[in-house]
């Protein structure tokens, strides 16, 4: 089965063709970052306006580059939530009507399920069950993935998501928007011993996270110091270390508690190289295997939606002609079986 996937939940327009026999045949991405940067965050109405301009041209490019003819497409997958409702509706409207016209089934995909399954696009792909650390702009969760379609949240952030903490801290340090990757680059020049930030919620049991206190810590430290280039880098480094350490501590705990022997990383912060190598070390030490999507499939993309959609379409699931978008949609509400 060959599926066209469409992702428009936030500020990235992503499309891809995934074939259940041949794998990923192509993907294309357009990022709106430049549009929103001047406002210091995503402006929902501008995001929607840009998706509707870019989506069809992107699909055209994709079909050309992946040498896919329209009549070879057996199904359409679009992100139905969670995310920005206006942005989601663009992908849903285009996706559902493409499917209607071509008379093929359509499926509304859960954006986080896309992230969780992104590692399935790589070689080797993990087998089930596994523990997933989902660290994105909107979510920080430890999820037990028993099998495709069964997601149990073991722990999550009680306030800011890890990506959000990266972005807010970057903003405090004057690194612009979205600052996560910039902060990570700056941290490379930082002295790891200059500052030591707390590892929130690691002293008590449980698998929840809290990252909002860290940015306050960054701010008070920054204000108390001579504000030069090196201090900025040192603070970035201390912040990144604290986040990575906290994530690693909770991953270790979750692996121990659950007895799972595979760890997968998903979501935009998963593109962070130091997080990747840190979790690699942890996995080695605990004799578990670790899997990552390539960095471009950590952040929002069409490939993960095409994949998750293809799996569900193959089980015979599909959407009626009445389509919709679900801005808030907890992942544990998904419950289906592929076998």
């Amino acid at each position, binding site marked *: 089965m060959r599926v066209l996937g469409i992702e428009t939940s936030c500020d990235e327009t992503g499309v891809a063709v995934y074939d259940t026999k041949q794998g990923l045949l192509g993907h294309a991405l357009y990022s709106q970052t430049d549009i929103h940067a001047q*406002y210091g965050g995503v*402006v929902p*109405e*501008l995001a*929607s*306006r840009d998706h*509707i*301009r870019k*989506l*069809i*041209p992107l*699909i*055209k490019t994709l079909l050309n580059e992946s040498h896919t003819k*329209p009549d070879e497409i057996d199904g359409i997958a679009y992100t139905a939530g969670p995310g920005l*409702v*206006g942005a989601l*509706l*663009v*992908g*849903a*409207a*285009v*996706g*559902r*009507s*493409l499917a*209607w*016209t*071509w*008379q093929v089934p359509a499926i509304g995909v859960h954006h986080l399920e896309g992230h969780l399954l992104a590692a399935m696009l790589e070689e080797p792909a993990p087998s089930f069950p596994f523990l997933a650390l989902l660290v994105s702009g909107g979510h920080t969760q430890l999820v037990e993935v028993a099998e495709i379609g069964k997601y149990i949240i073991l722990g999550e952030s009680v306030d800011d998501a890890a990506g959000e903490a990266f972005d807010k801290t970057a903003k405090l340090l004057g690194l612009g928007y979205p600052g996560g990757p910039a902060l990570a680059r700056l941290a490379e020049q930082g002295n790891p011993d200059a500052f030591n930030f707390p590892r929130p919620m690691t002293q008590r049991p449980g698998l929840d996270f809290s990252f909002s206190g860290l940015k306050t810590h960054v701010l008070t430290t920054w204000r108390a110091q001579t504000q030069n280039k090196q201090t900025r880098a040192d603070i970035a480094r201390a912040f990144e270390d604290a986040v990575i350490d906290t994530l690693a501590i909770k991953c270790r705990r979750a692996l121990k508690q659950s007895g799972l022997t595979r760890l997968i990383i998903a979501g935009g912060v998963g593109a962070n190289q130091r997080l990747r190598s840190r979790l690699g070390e942890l996995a080695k030490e605990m004799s578990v295997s670790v899997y990552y999507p390539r960095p471009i499939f950590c952040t929002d993309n069409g490939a993960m939606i095409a994949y998750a959609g293809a799996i569900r379409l193959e089980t015979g699931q599909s959407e*009626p*002609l*009445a*389509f*919709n*978008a679900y801005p808030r949609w907890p992942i544990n509400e998904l419950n289906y079986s592929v076998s």
Partner: protein
Amino acid sequence: MKLLVIDTATEACSCALYLDGEIQDRYVIAPRQHTSLILPMADELLAEAGLKPTQLEGIAFGCGPGSFTGLRIACGVVQGIAFAADIPVAPISSLAALAQATYTKYGAVKVLAAIDARMHEVYWGRYKIDDKDIMRCESKEIVCAPNDISLPSEGQWYGVGTGWATYAENLKAKLGKMVQDYQGKTYPQASAMIPLALAAFQEGKIVSAEDALPVYLRNKVVQTRS
């Protein structure tokens, strides 16, 4: 010609199928239900006519002004159909649709169309019928406060649209004796767009799927700090 027309620009949701002179249509007032209704409506109309979506020869839609989300629902659906069926699109103004319907229904030949744009503004356009019975905009369509509308120079005009329901007093005060009558509780409707769509196809005022885009009129959407 086999032409599908859809509109979700306002509280109304409608769809019409034109088959070489025959018209079938669906129309409901159903705020926030457009995504549930629009494709089932189109599917029903085509099924009744024994037509597959890929047999359509053209598609038209209410491109605005109107609710931003509503415009993008119709627009997204139309882009998908037009791209998948490889057919051209005729974008039709919501204000022109109101004017054309007023001509069809009441024989009004000069129409002042106003849609409530929220934020104390209206979407506004002045329309006159031409010798082919098609409503033409005689000025630019604008979004403005009811007191800032562009005025016709003379004549008797028929007011139409939700702007007339919300701001009748302001508009009448501005226009004085030029208002012949008005009908406030009226929404754009797909079937009333058919003459406009046929004219657009005849005149080549058509675009491909990716160029079928909403006309928002209101383009300042970010509150910038001053």
